[in-house]
């Protein structure tokens, strides 16, 4: 049952990860330029074919591929062999020069592979720390693997554990807290002021790209009533129909300001569109209900003195940029806590795999003993043909009991040996009496080998 990890570790050693070796091989924004990443990326429609092709290789037990714009990574359970095939495939696909492959393509094995997936799923390995999309992408990768029958119990367990750990890291630390894009920072501020946005009225002045993006984000957060005001009525009409908004005639801007809650200004006007007097009048009319002004125009659309007015919250593009930078810094600080949580998750997963493997080893020992018992029993009955059915039954019962008694201690030994393999256990040179050493001895005594009878059956790829 033990996998010879010569190819992985560079020595003829028994890896404690019996039943297969988990590997993560890939390239990401940290190691590869965008052109490599683009070439290596596997589109969703290609994924079933690629997965099934890999699953046909005898050395591969299970496989899943995570492919996003920032990374392409292969997660596999290897029964034998090393990661060279994966390296070669990624290198050729990305047209990475052979000399550069070791720099561009990384490989993680066992605990490191598990840890890597946990970091990826929680967004710690992302370009923007804590970005939420990667969680869905990891979920999608394992879904595709399951659908194509190439993900079995171990990878399923790994991805489930990674998703669980990522969710925990996100909920118990601030790694995904605080907007990191300017448009979303404006939305988050709006939510901090108003709470629910579904009853709020949004006005977009001008037709800048950023203001449209902000309006889109506000809509996503529930803002239903959006107006567009532009000096060019045609442009306003076109944008309004594109974004399902209403047109506010430019000449009615001042009188309508009182009913707006959020104003995003991004006109190309060379002077202030919203002066202190205009906003003051609007605030009087709206009886000081809070007004959130987002000025992302250059030159500015809103007079800076407007910020002094009671219950007016004015943010310009520099303020929003400062907010996002602060949020990014805060996320980085939270990374330390998130790493601790992930380590706990990795430990739990490794313990689970060890328990799983212990179960497999015990099954093998018992199967071997049962075979011996049956053979001896048959020989006895054959040689002593004067045995009555009652005597045969008694002997069979006796042999079973004896076998169970004999196997009780080795079974417990296997379980405790697996438990004793801690995360610092040396793989290539297990010290005497360490978990790996005991395990290797037991496996040696009972002749336990890597076999298809292990608890980890290779899933059958769907045609």
């Amino acid at each position, binding site marked *: 049952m033990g996998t010879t990890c010569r190819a992985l570790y560079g020595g003829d050693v028994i890896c404690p990860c019996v039943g297969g070796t988990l590997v993560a091989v890939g390239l990401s924004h940290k190691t590869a330029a965008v052109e490599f990443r683009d070439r290596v990326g596997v589109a969703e429609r290609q994924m079933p074919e690629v997965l099934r092709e890999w699953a046909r290789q005898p050395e591969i037990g299970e496989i899943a591929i995570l492919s996003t714009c920032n990374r392409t990574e292969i997660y596999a359970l290897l029964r034998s062999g090393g990661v060279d095939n994966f390296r070669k495939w990624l290198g050729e696909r990305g047209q990475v020069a052979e000399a550069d492959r070791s720099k561009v393509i990384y490989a993680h094995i066992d605990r490191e592979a598990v840890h890597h997936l946990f970091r990826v799923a929680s967004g710690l390995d992302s370009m923007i720390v804590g970005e939420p999309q990667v969680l869905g992408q990891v979920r999608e990768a394992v879904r595709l693997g399951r659908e194509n029958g190439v993900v079995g119990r171990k990878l399923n367990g790994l991805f489930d554990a990674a998703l669980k750990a990522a969710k925990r890291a996100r*909920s*118990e*630390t*601030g790694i995904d*807290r*605080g907007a990191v894009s300017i448009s979303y920072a404006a939305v988050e*501020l709006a*939510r*901090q*002021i*108003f*709470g629910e946005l579904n009853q709020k009225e949004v006005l977009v002045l001008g037709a800048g790209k950023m203001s449209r993006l902000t309006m889109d984000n506000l809509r996503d957060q529930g803002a239903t009533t959006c107006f567009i005001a532009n000096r060019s009525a045609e442009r306003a009409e076109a944008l309004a129909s594109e974004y399902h908004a209403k047109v506010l005639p430019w000449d009615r801007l001042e009188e309508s300001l009182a009913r707006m809650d959020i104003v995003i200004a991004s006109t190309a006007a060379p002077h202030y569109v919203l002066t202190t007097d205009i906003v003051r009048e609007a605030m009087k009319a709206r*009886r*000081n*209900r*809070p007004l959130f002004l987002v000025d992302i125009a250059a030159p500015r659309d809103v007079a800076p003195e407007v*910020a002094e007015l*009671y*219950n007016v*919250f004015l*943010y310009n593009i520099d*303020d929003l940029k*400062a*907010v996002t930078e*602060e*949020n990014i810094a*805060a996320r980085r600080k939270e990374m330390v806590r998130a790493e601790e949580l992930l380590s706990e998750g990795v430990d739990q997963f490794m313990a689970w795999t060890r328990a799983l493997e212990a179960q497999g080893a015990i099954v093998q020992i018992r199967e071997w003993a049962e075979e011996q018992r049956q053979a001896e029993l048959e020989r006895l009955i054959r040689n002593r043909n004067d045995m009555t059915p009652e005597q045969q039954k008694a002997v069979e019962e006796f042999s079973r009991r004896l076998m169970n008694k004999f196997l009780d201690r080795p079974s417990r030994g296997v379980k405790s040996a697996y438990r004793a393999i801690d995360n610092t256990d040396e793989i290539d040179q297990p010290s005497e009496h360490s978990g790996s050493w005991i395990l290797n001895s037991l496996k040696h005594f009972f002749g336990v080998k890597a076999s298809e009878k292990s608890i980890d059956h290779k899933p059958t790829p769907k045609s």
Partner: protein
Amino acid sequence: MWGEILTSLDGAVVLLYGITWLGYARSFGLGRQAPTKSTIVPLLTALIAHTAVLIVRGIHLGHTPTIGMHGALGFVAWSMALCYVFLQTHLRTSAFGIFILPFAVVFTAIVWLVGGPTDSTDLAAKMSERGALFALHMAGALFSYSCFAIAFAGGLMYVLLDRELHSKKIGALTRRMPPLAKIDKVVTHSVGLGLIMLGLGMVLGVIGLAGQPEGWESWEDNAKVFTALLIWMAYAFILFMMIRGDWRGRRGALGAVVCFLMVFALYFVVNLMFANLHGAV
């Protein structure tokens, strides 16, 4: 023996509120906006335990446990916790707990440290003679103080968040706070409910005094009556300004903070030092 039992029960209540507050502090630290099991369960446990302690004390003393500083603080803490349970259920936000629950902890801690009466006092006996109307008068007035304390906590939260939003330095505090609109709603509603309850308490007090001729002779120079009236008028002014719009937001929140500090000062200075049982002493 009863003294020891009641003191132990008071101590247990302090401990439960303390644990509850720690749960809220953890939740706040983790940035959880919505209440979770770790905050709801301890809060409900503390409230139920406190209710049970008040009932036990009431049965043992033979009157409502709201008399004297001990009773008043205990009842204010209890009604604050009760209000907060409703507030949390309605607003689905746990951040208020971090600001409101310290009152419950401090008030119950004072109750525990000072140690309440183990037997009914003369004052209590005199008060309980006045019947249910008087009990309601007391409960109404004390409940209003709980509302004002919640308005104070909300006001403080509003001022802090408003300052951060205006300074454009969005820090950890901002990310953990509920929206300004929600806090404003809590402040406005707490002030409104407090006014109704204080008004009710005062009206019941007046009705109670009407039945006692000697009461009318002394109430005019009773500091408690004047301070209650002063407090009611101050809060009524704030609420009026908030509804009108002039004090919507920060000014109203500041008003709630200042007014509660006034209530606090007046409660200790006037109520405890100058008068105990007004209207019939």
